[in-house]
């Protein structure tokens, strides 16, 4: 059952994942600004996601 949680996606099969609408954040600049505000106001960092589709590129 756990095997279904880790499908073996090959590097060349990430085309759909690399599409902009698959990103967890629609606007990377806005997300960065919000994170900066949170950092300065709440004195906190971390716990946020990274941008990009994870294409396996260098």
């Amino acid at each position: 059952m756990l095997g279904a949680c880790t499908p073996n996606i090959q590097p060349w099969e990430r085309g759909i994942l690399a599409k902009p609408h698959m990103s967890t954040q629609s606007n990377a600049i806005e997300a960065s600004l919000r994170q900066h505000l949170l950092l300065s106001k709440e004195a906190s960092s971390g716990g946020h996601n990274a941008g990009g589709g994870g294409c396996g590129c260098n």
Partner: protein
Amino acid sequence: MISRYIAFSFLPFIFSTFAFAAKPGDLAPTCITEHIENGQTLDIANYKNKVIYVDFWASWCPPCKLSFPSLNKLHNELYKQDFEVIAINLDEDKNDALEFLQHNPVKFTVAYDGKGKCPSGYNVMAMPSSYIIDKQGVVREVHLGFNEDSINHIRKTVLTLLAE
């Protein structure tokens, strides 16, 4: 004790991932695919006696896009000296590749392998991945990824292999 059994149970998965990767010194794995433009069969084995640069790429991969002008320049410089660039596209939708080629036209050979048979044979680990194969059909260098400095090293290797 149980944790040891769990650790050993994952070993087959780990080795199955790395067991068949094409590495320097290996004979180039079989790769039969098709020309992207006309669908004619393209067999890597037919390029013996030539130094070939096999490049696995996709339209959605930024370093692949970066590599195309440099590879085209290298092809134009050396194609008369038994050097061939074979770029195998791995897009799931062939139209994505054709659209990419309209915006990034190249003179070298472009093939299409949407089912991923060739990259499975080579066990491609990243996009782009490229393999420099000598005149005897032996993999001599493997490159994962591409940056602006890569082409100088690739050119040097190709020139060395052409001189052999």
